């Protein structure tokens, strides 16, 4: 036993020594570079991490833009890193924050910016933003970038600015509509019209509205349309046992059971996309980058139409963005802002969005002919005007799991809609207060 303890002590000493060495060398490495630059300008190195950035060519384009930035700002050096979505970048950022090693500037997927704000890990951007950018930012983003929640220091403040946005709207196959004698979607079609069309289109092995009970983005706009919200404004309680929610879920469940393919309750989105490409689905809700892929198919190119979400009361569309945040741990927030500001300039926004196929964050880029002359891009930009983000709670992921399970229980008939909503509310309230 004594030997074992001795061994442990030795091990502890060695680990300690190794850790000590590590910090010493890194300090040594930093010092000379700072000294060397001091005569001219103080050299600042900022770290910039992007969650995702795994669209083809995206990370390369970003590196290119950063190089341009460094040429313009010789005193700022940027260490850029993109972490693919498959590697759970948000978890990595979180771990880095806990260990005090996080980067100065981050790009995260919304609503993770609000999660970071709740824990006080980021700083408000109001202190940096200029009038020009304020006016130029798309309305949806200046609306959704404002924090409301339990962190009173940030309440009502702008916490994030997107690098790019995306929105889900109706994409349809004109050919199938024509063959079924159904009029194409108008900009003001109602939920009833949408349902009737979807039912009429469902025949001969074609499904009118391909959808999946696995994703909140598929059904939430129908709830929003009636004025339903997941949580109350204080984010302390679920508000889902209202008649609006019941009505919206019943509406969606009828759609999924009558106008979507078998197995829709838990189908993967990729499968719906495949069925649409095979012309077995007439309409579905998807993002722009996927439609751009479809447009490459010469057989489909002329058949694809982009419509707006049907609406009765409030027109919405499920939107999201990959947004910049500046961390509280950053020692160079001003330089981080410089980089942010550079990347959301009209020219760079255009250049980046052309590569990745998403939508720009600023109006000046969105009004470029590249977007306005293209019916697909135009349709999505129009949908983005009505864009609404998912619930901005730090428990958003837990809420997603609960809502998914309960809507699936309601779709499969395991529970009544009322019971499913009540159970979901109970579970969400428990989650919020745990």
């Amino acid at each position, binding site marked *: 036993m004594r030997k074992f303890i001795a061994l442990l002590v030795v091990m502890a000493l060695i680990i300690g020594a190794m850790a000590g060495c590590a910090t010493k060398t890194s300090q040594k490495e930093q010092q000379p570079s700072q000294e060397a630059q001091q005569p001219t300008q103080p050299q600042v190195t900022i770290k910039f991490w992007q969650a995702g950035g795994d669209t083809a060519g995206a990370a390369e384009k970003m590196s290119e833009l950063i190089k341009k930035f460094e040429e313009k700002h010789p005193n700022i050096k940027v260490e850029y890193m993109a972490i693919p979505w498959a590697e759970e970048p948000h978890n990595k950022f979180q771990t880095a924050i806990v260990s005090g090693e996080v980067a100065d500037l981050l790009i995260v997927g919304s609503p993770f910016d609000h999660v970071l704000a709740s824990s006080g890990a980021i700083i408000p951007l109001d202190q940096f933003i200029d009038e020009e950018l304020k006016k130029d930012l798309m309305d949806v983003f200046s609306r959704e970038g404002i924090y409301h929640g339990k962190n009173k220091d940030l309440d009502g403040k702008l916490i994030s600015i997107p690098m790019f946005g995306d929105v889900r709207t109706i994409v349809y196959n004109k050919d199938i509509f024509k063959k079924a004698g159904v009029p194409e979607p108008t900009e003001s079609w109602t939920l009833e019209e949408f349902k009737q069309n979807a039912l009429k289109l469902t025949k001969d092995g074609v499904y009118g509205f391909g959808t999946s009970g696995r994703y909140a983005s598929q059904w939430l706009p129908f709830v929003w349309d009636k004025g339903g919200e997941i949580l109350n404004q204080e984010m302390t309680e679920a508000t889902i046992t209202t008649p609006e929610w019941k009505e919206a879920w019943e509406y969606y469940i009828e759609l999924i059971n009558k106008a979507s393919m078998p197995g829709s309750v838990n189908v993967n989105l990729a*499968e719906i996309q495949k069925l649409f490409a095979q012309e077995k689905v007439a309409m579905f809700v998807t993002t722009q980058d996927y439609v751009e892929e479809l447009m490459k198919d010469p057989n489909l190119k002329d058949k694809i139409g982009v419509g707006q979400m049907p609406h009765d009361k409030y027109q919405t569309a499920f939107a999201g963005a990959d947004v910049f945040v500046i961390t509280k741990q950053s020692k160079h927030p001003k330089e981080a802002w410089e980089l942010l500001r550079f990347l959301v300039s009209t020219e760079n926004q255009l250049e980046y969005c052309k590569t990745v196929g998403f939508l720009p964050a600023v109006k000046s880029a969105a009004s470029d002919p590249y977007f306005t002359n293209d019916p697909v891009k135009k349709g999505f930009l129009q949908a983005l005007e009505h864009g609404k983000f998912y619930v901005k709670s730090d428990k958003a992921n837990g809420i997603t799991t609960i809502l998914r399970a309960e809507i699936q*229980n309601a779709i499969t008939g*395991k529970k009544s809609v009322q019971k499913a909503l009540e159970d979901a509310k109970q579970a969400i309230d428990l989650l919020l207060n745990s």
Partner: protein
Amino acid sequence: MIVTNRKEKVGYYLFLLPAYLIFAVFIFWPVVHSLYLSFFKYNIVTITSPQFVGLRNYLYLLKDEVFWISCKNTLFFVIGTVPVKMFLGLLAAMLLNRKDLKFKAFYRTCFYIPVVVSMVAISIVWMLLFNPGPNGVVNILLSKFGIQPLGWIADSKLALPTVMLLVIWKDLGYIMVIYLAGLMAIPDEIYEAVALDPVSSWQKFWYITWPLLKPTTIFILITQVIDSFQVFTPIYVMTEGGPGYSSTTIVNYLYDKGFREYEMGIACAVAYLLFVVLLVLTILQNKLSKAEEVSYD
């Protein structure tokens, strides 16, 4: 060997040190630390330092309906896969151990291929096969025989069994190989001893093969039970626990709590409950195996 020289002893420990270090940092420390964390509220999003809450995480689990559903599903999964896998594995091993069988190596390789394939990749293939939609291969085949298409992974009653089918198919080869080794270790003389007596093949199996395979069976049982209690990947890929909670297992629940809701304290508590259950089961199985030591003499 007894080491008397003190210097030599130090030398040995120095050689062992890298292994000890790796063990200490990557296994011992996380295991102990997660037990410690299971008594804390530790949401890595909302709070930066853990708060001691005593047994609250464990009480939360007892109250959480989803945890119990996931326990029930996991038990169903273990009971539904382990015996089937072992029965089929033994059957395959016996068939492939026949002296008159040709192309043995070929068949053995075929059975073993699924073991080598990545679980994620094969789960995706399985999803394509058991797709309940119009592109589902199995449903298309069934319809050729006039059988109504089934909901498979989209049906709350069939989702978990569909995953179980995959796991049985994938693990079969591994169990077969272990059983094959067990079978080949049984000396021929024992069979030769009864060759002149009027015994049926069934009697040979029941009185000679099965008892002599007992250590192999116990080994497979223990490892497979532990493995099956920890099923995660195919469910994560194929159903994400749905529809509803119908295919959520304990480790999926743990993952959701830890890495989607960031409730590390609760996730650690789940891990430790699972650990205790597995420990008890393993001790029981070990006792069982000790009680019936097998000898070839």
